[in-house]
């Protein structure tokens, strides 16, 4: 009992001190709490949105009973023998195939999408998204004649809506359908996946199918099968390994137009959310570093200012461990309160942002909060913070009770002096500079915080800039296309020459390519292949472009996935033909998230591929691109369809909007952080320098003079931090973005600096620091010269 009472007594001491400390440092408590609110809110929202997207996507896959491998294959290639071999394969549980009609392109309101769409009968396992796009309808109504259900991916890519009429080009004929609704199709419904399934009524499908059966020639045959293959329960191979083995044993992938494993589909669909989440998580991590720096500063200055009180506590028998425990509890309590409020505030945010990725993922996300995961991450943040506080409060051990009680506190106002003169002209600025140089160590934390904010703001600027930068895209992908053309018929050399001749009348050609693309297999793995008539357009990062017909170049991602190196020999196969090739170099491509290789047309001819389907040009006079596209369509209407890309075929609007939204979020949080940090630093500095302020007032400085000095000092801090942040950005932004953007196939990120890259983040932070410091220094009015009076 006595021991129990003793425990309570000891606890009460700490609780009493804790209460006193919180009361005396409300500002610090609130600031740390506020910063933690932002971190917890952002963290919980990001984690929850990611989890919700992922769970909803998995549910959608389950709902449609998606196969582990989806193969799209021409009717004639899916022979009974191939089907039987596949069905009887030991690693296959089930094979389901449905007939589809292939549309070569989709058109809406003058916008054409050259990716293939597959028209199929409606299936009530697919769920209909409601009008508000926030949940699913209970049932999916049957389609009438001329109606279709499409996926959100088409809506995003074509910018169409329910009620609009889309045109599909099937077997050389144009077929128009009115959009009745949007369904969740998880296998290839995402906007980042080229192929799309389109659902039409049974009646329309049968009519079209029977109609084409009678008249379509085989070379433009629209008859395909979508084959869903399910992995055997006992198969432990990954989807990729399983597909490779299945292909090696049956040749089904080699005979197909293309295939998509469930893992690939999952990867592509979650790709963009993952990139955004990764960037935001890095940002949240940096914000956490800022909170630690702010706490470190707050604790250090608190110990300096409370030197006497802490000495008195020591003289009364408090051990340094007990005092440090009070500090740990005080700041952890602020963090805990902030985390709780942040998690609560994240609930409405999750509700409103829950479906932010719908235009990309094409499935409706649930809106639950990932409380457990967020709490676990926050707990680890508390542990890190606690350890950090324990380290920072180590200096309490050095406090001498005797010196504290006798008032022998060491000088705290400055630690060193850089001998920069103080001039009459611009006196406030020179004094601000002197105050800054005299307390460099004290401002090191603030400089570090500014540098982190500026670094991240610049990184996001760089990301935004590069998406619209001609030189950066060219440096990363080899060419910035200003006009492309798709050939309707296999072109020949004469057509190329005629096209070039005509183009020269408008503008000299800067760069050009003639290419085709196919899914080919490398050692059994199906990989997207770019086949160039003149492969020297390929920019090799290592080695060289494929000059001979037995050479290929691969991306770093293919090299990693397939464990290939330059000089390795590989077997490339297509439609029962195969040959050996040597890896001559490494290049970069963002197609198929970097799972790409390339070869020359001569090389592809050995596999039976001899037709060029696409042409791309860039011009010395890029403003002529629209005229050139129009001219090509007029001059060669039977051979090609050309389209101008004045912006170099940049990213889709959705991605640009998403990146801009992310930029906005990051900038807003940075400004809020700047405000809190300035408030905390200003308040502490103000308390430390109250006497100096009184002296200046006694010497005849006005309050405005002093506020200006104060604000200028923080402007200097912001400038110093900005320089550091910019330097770190120059050194690290490219690497950071490369590591994140590797997800989409960018292994060598080319940083494109513009004046804005520096100017916008630096000026925003500097202006914020200056204005916030000017604002906070308003309390300078209350400093009376009487502070100097010793009664």
């Amino acid at each position: 009992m006595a021991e129990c009472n003793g425990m309570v007594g000891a606890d009460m001491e700490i609780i009493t001190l804790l209460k006193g400390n919180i009361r005396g440092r409300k500002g610090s408590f609130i600031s740390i709490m506020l910063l933690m609110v932002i971190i917890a809110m952002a963290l919980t929202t990001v984690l929850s949105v990611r989890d919700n997207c992922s769970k909803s996507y998995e549910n959608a896959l389950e709902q449609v009973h998606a196969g582990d491998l989806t193969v799209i294959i021409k009717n004639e290639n899916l022979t009974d023998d191939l089907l039987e071999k596949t069905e009887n394969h030991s690693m296959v549980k089930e094979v389901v195939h449905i007939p589809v009609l292939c549309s070569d392109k989709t058109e809406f309101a003058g916008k054409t999408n050259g990716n293939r769409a597959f028209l199929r009968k409606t299936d009530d396992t697919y769920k209909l998204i409601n009008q508000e796009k926030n949940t699913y309808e209970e049932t999916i109504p049957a389609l009438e004649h001329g109606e279709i259900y499409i996926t959100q991916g088409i809506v995003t890519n074509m910018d169409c809506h329910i009620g609009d009429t889309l045109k599909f080009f099937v077997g050389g004929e144009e077929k128009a359908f009115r959009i009745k609704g949007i369904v969740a199709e998880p296998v290839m419904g995402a906007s980042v996946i080229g192929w799309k399934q389109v659902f039409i009524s049974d009646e329309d499908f049968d009519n079209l199918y029977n109609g084409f059966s009678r008249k379509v020639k085989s070379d433009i045959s629209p008859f395909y099968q979508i084959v869903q293959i399910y992995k055997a329960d006992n198969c432990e191979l990954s989807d990729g390994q399983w597909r490779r083995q299945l292909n090696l044993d049956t040749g089904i992938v080699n005979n197909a137009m293309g295939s998509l494993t469930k893992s690939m589909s999952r990867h592509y669909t979650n790709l963009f959310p993952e990139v955004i989440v990764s960037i935001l998580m890095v940002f949240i991590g940096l914000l956490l570093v800022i909170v630690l720096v702010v706490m470190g500063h707050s604790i250090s200055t608190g110990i300096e200012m409370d030197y006497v009180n802490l000495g008195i506590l020591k003289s009364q028998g408090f051990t340094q461990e007990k005092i440090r425990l009070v500090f740990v509890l005080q700041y952890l309590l602020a963090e805990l309160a902030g985390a709780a409020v942040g998690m609560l505030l994240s609930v409405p945010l999750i509700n409103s942002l829950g479906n932010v990725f719908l235009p990309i993922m094409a499935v409706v996300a649930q809106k639950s909060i990932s409380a457990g995961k967020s709490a676990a991450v926050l707990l680890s943040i508390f542990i890190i913070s606690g350890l950090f506080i324990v380290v920072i409060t180590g200096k309490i051990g050095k406090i001498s009770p005797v010196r504290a009680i006798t008032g022998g506190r060491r000088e705290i106002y400055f630690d060193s002096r850089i001998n920069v003169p103080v001039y009459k002209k611009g006196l406030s600025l020179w004094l601000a500079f002197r105050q800054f140089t005299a307390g460099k160590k004290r401002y090191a934390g603030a400089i570090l915080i500014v540098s982190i904010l500026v670094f991240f703001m610049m990184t996001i600027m760089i990301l935004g800039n590069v998406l619209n930068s001609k030189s950066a895209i060219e440096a990363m992908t080899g060419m910035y296309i200003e006009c492309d053309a798709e050939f309707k018929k296999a072109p020949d050399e004469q057509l190329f020459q005629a096209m070039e001749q005509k183009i020269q009348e408008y503008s000299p050609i800067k760069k050009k390519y003639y290419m085709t693309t196919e899914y080919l297999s490398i050692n059994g793995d199906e990989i997207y292949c770019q086949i160039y008539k003149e492969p020297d357009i390929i920019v090799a990062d290592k080695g060289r472009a494929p000059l001979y017909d037995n050479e290929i170049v691969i991306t770093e991602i293919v090299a990693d996935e397939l464990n290939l190196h330059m000089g390795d020999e590989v077997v490339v196969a297509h439609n029962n033909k195969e040959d050996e090739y040597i890896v001559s170099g490494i290049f970069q491509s963002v197609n198929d998230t970097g799972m790409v290789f390339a070869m020359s047309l001569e090389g592809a001819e050995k596999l039976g591929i001899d037709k060029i389907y696409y042409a791309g040009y860039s011009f010395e006079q890029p403003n002529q691109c629209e005229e050139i596209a129009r001219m090509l369509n007029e001059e060669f209407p039977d051979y090609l369809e050309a389209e101008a890309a004045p912006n170099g075929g940049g990213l889709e609007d959705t991605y640009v909007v998403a990146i801009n939204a992310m930029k906005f979020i990051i900038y807003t949080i940075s400004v809020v952080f700047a405000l809190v940090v300035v408030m905390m630093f200003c308040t502490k500095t103000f308390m430390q320098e109250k006497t100096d302020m009184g002296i200046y007032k006694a010497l005849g400085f006005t309050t405005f003079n002093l506020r200006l000095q104060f604000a200028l000092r923080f402007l200097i801090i912001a400038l110093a931090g900005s320089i550091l942040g910019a330097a770190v950005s120059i050194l690290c932004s490219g690497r950071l973005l490369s590591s994140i953007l590797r997800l989409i196939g960018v292994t060598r990120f080319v940083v494109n600096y513009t004046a804005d890259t520096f100017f916008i983040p630096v000026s925003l932070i500097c202006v914020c620091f200056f204005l916030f410091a000017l604002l906070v220094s308003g309390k300078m009015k209350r400093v009376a010269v009487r502070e100097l009076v010793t009664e």
Partner: protein
Amino acid sequence: MKNVILSAKGLCKSYAHNGGQNHILSHVDIEIYDGDFTVVMGASGSGKSTLLYALSGMDRATAGEVLYNGENLVQCKEKKLAALRHGDFGFVFQQMHLVSNLSLFENIVVPGYLNKNKNASEIKAYAQELMEKMGISHIKSHLPSQVSGGEQQRCAIARAVINSPKLLFADEPTGALNRHNTTEVLNLLTELNRSGQSILMVTHDMRAALRASRILYLEDGKITGTLDLQPYNKEEEKSREKQVDAWLNAMEW
């Protein structure tokens, strides 16, 4: 007939304290003459420093008026008071209050820079001259923390007179100094006064009071006595001390 440089009428200063009012100064009438070395004496807590700061406009009186050049400082705006502080008035504090991150020389020139009528080189030259006069020119680039209390106070005096103020306010300038430094500082102030500088000093140090040409006694927030003296002369210090001591005894000090 001496000219009045600063005067106060009915000066009151009180503070809110425990729900009531604590009256520090009550209806003080006072005149400070040009060229005088006026000393205000009184027991601890009598309101000496409060009177000094109320007269200098550093603190606002609760009631009454402080007249300087025909203007009531009690009603002046902060900008005007700031201008007076770097132009017409100079201040010396008990705790010196030098700006810790400025060198001694910079501490002196900075208020000089606020003076728009002088250019920087004139201010620097005058600061140098003052430092030499105060015997601190050899430590001009030292920081306050690197010099003795006496040197700091001499620097503070030089700073106070850099703009050639009409009136120098000194609040216990020797309160934090040892005997040797006290004498040096008092000699400097006496020297300044001889050269025409008006000084109003608050002290409870008898040695400091001996330098005055006029001593005012403050008790319970009121001026209760005045003693006019001949200009200070070191040879007559003993007899002067007796005279002041007798007067202070009469004031029940």
